[in-house]
């Protein structure tokens, strides 16, 4: 009996030790650091109060009626508000229109290119795509007569910098949702559609009553993964704008980096890391609960 009990532990031990050393210990250490002053004294929740009251996190003087900076937390929220629906919709759109199309894999590969491209390259591309002289986006905007947007380099202006990074994020992440939706669409049995056609259902009704409900698990994955990605976003913004100008595109991860490695204030950086972890835990717990519920 005792042999039966110890065998699983024996096989689990290496993984558990690694998790304790490389995951649990750093998390606990970071949490502890967030309660200390830079000099190492215990200060309770003072660091949290200081960070949450800071205009770097929420700038209520400017949000929502003036142009950014609105604070890093608001900027992350704006990322979710714009980036999430766009990537979900575009991914679904591409997956549906490319379903059963000859040569669709080529187009899918092109859309997926953004996903496999390093984020740093994406950040650099944002600078060039939205440049007033050479940017393709600006050329298109000029062509349709939107000169106020076409005649500025988006990443250098506080009004547009945040949105430039979000739009490049949409381009990079749409491939992910398209691939997930494509796989989910392929898994829907053809018989469902054939039965609906016999009943005289229109394409729209088939989409609403068959496709969409059966895509719910895929949507759940796309939404959660995208929200996690948006909360942790760093590379694109850091390379394209550095969080500026004037913190107009600052996000939590960059602010955490600046606090840790520019200001060398590891306590405030630990507070931001803890807040960021808590925020990312919310969707993770939600998907875990949903998955358990479905079982």
């Amino acid at each position, binding site marked *: 009996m005792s*042999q*039966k009990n110890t*065998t699983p532990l*024996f096989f689990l031990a290496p993984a558990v030790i690694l998790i304790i050393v490389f995951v649990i210990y750093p998390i606990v250490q970071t949490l502890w650091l967030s309660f200390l002053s830079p000099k190492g004294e215990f200060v309770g929740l003072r660091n949290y109060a200081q960070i949450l009251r800071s205009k770097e996190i929420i700038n209520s003087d400017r949000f929502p009626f003036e142009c950014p900076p609105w604070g890093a937390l608001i900027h992350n929220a704006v990322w979710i508000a714009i980036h999430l629906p766009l990537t979900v919709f575009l991914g679904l759109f591409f997956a549906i229109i490319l379903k059963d199309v000859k040569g669709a894999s080529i187009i899918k590969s092109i859309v997926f290119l953004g996903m496999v491209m390093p984020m740093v390259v994406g950040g650099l591309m944002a*600078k060039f795509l939205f*440049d*007033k002289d050479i940017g393709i986006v600006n050329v298109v905007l000029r062509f349709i007569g939107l000169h106020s947007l076409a005649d*500025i*380099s988006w990443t*250098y*202006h*506080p009004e547009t910098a945040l949105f430039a990074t979000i739009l490049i994020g949409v381009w990079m992440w749409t491939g992910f949702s398209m691939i997930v939706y494509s796989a989910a669409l392929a898994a829907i049995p053809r018989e469902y559609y054939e039965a609906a056609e016999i009943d005289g259902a229109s394409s729209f009704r088939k989409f609403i009553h068959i496709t969409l409900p059966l895509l719910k698990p895929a949507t759940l994955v796309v939404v959660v993964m995208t929200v996690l990605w948006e909360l942790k976003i760093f590379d694109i913004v850091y390379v394209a704008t*550095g*969080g*500026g*100008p*004037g*913190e*107009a595109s600052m996000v939590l991860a960059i602010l955490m980096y*600046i*606090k840790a*490695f*520019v*200001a*060398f*204030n590891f306590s405030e950086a630990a507070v931001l890391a803890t807040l960021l972890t808590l925020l990312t835990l919310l969707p993770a717990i939600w998907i875990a609960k949903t998955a358990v519920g479905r079982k």
Partner: protein
Amino acid sequence: MAAAREAKTLIIVVGIVCLLVGFGAGWMVKPAPAPMKLVVIGPWSGAEMESFMPVLGAFAVEKGIMVEYRTYRAEDLATILPAQFKAGKAPADVIFMWAWWIRNNTEHILDISDIIDPADFMPGIVDQVTVDGKVYGAPYTGKVKPGFWYRISFFEEHNLKVPTTWEEFTTLLENISTIDGIVAPIASGDGVGWPLSDVTEHFILTFGGTDLFEGLINGSVSWTSDEVKAIFKDKLVPLLKKGYFSEPDDWTLILENWWEGKHALYFMGSWITGMVDDPTDLGVFSLPGAKAFVFCPDFMFIPKYTKHPDEAKELVKFLSGAEGQTIQVRQGGHIATNLNVELSAYPEVDKKVAQLLQGATAVTDLDDTIGGEFQTTFWDQLKYLWAHPDEWETVLAKIEEKAP
């Protein structure tokens, strides 16, 4: 049950055999000792690195010690070094880094007071890396930020003259803005943000003087004081509002635009002379009335954790000495900090810079001296100012929040 026990036994036996074989092989096979090689980390790449390599080459020939050069920006080093030092390791034997960073990390840095004599260098330079009477860094060559560079051929073609008063300067900008093909009279460089801070510092130094400048560095003067406000309100902001400064763009890309004639003036350090096709076509002037200039020496240090402290000291002695600096200034774009470097070593275009500096005071770069969060905030807020000059008071207030 029995199968699991057998599997467990097999894993343990295989693990023990692997460990024994590994240790045995490691003990028996002694790798041939690698030849001693010093590693130097510096911020230069491209053309700047090309002009540094002959200096390292000369050291290698003279001392018979191989040297490998690696490029890391100071901003990146600031994130890498703390963890390395905490682990008792050093990524290089000699590292070029900001003076303020060297001062703040002396517990990890070798005291090199025995090889650096402050009397050999420009007055006050070694003080920047001295803590409690001990010298922790060595000055290499430096760069001056003398003013606005222009192409002599462009000025001649359009009959433009170097201004001697503020009024002449603004008139010059107005005249330039009417020339066909000009996007904006002054090119605004960008990168992480230092080109904008350089030109802003030149305005502060020219119209506020060295006392105000030093006061901003040591925190005795506020960024929201009347003196600073006046410089922004009366001098810098009106030029921004009139569109005399271009939108910021990558500083190397906009350098090409400036050279091609899309801009007439470019505020840049003396290293620009090594970055253009024809340095003899370069002219430079400072803001009328400028009596002081920013001089930025590069500093190097030896980490305590180097495996070759004696050889590293030899290298630092060579680089900071007259011999090493002479080779560097010959390449152009650099000004020696060592007083024993002969004037004849400078290329002609650098002599123009030296001429401009005659009788002027040299001060350290404001944001490089303060460093930390102030520096990134200063850069970032200036980018905002370039887009929204109307909000200059908010910008100054934000900078003041992070000031010493």
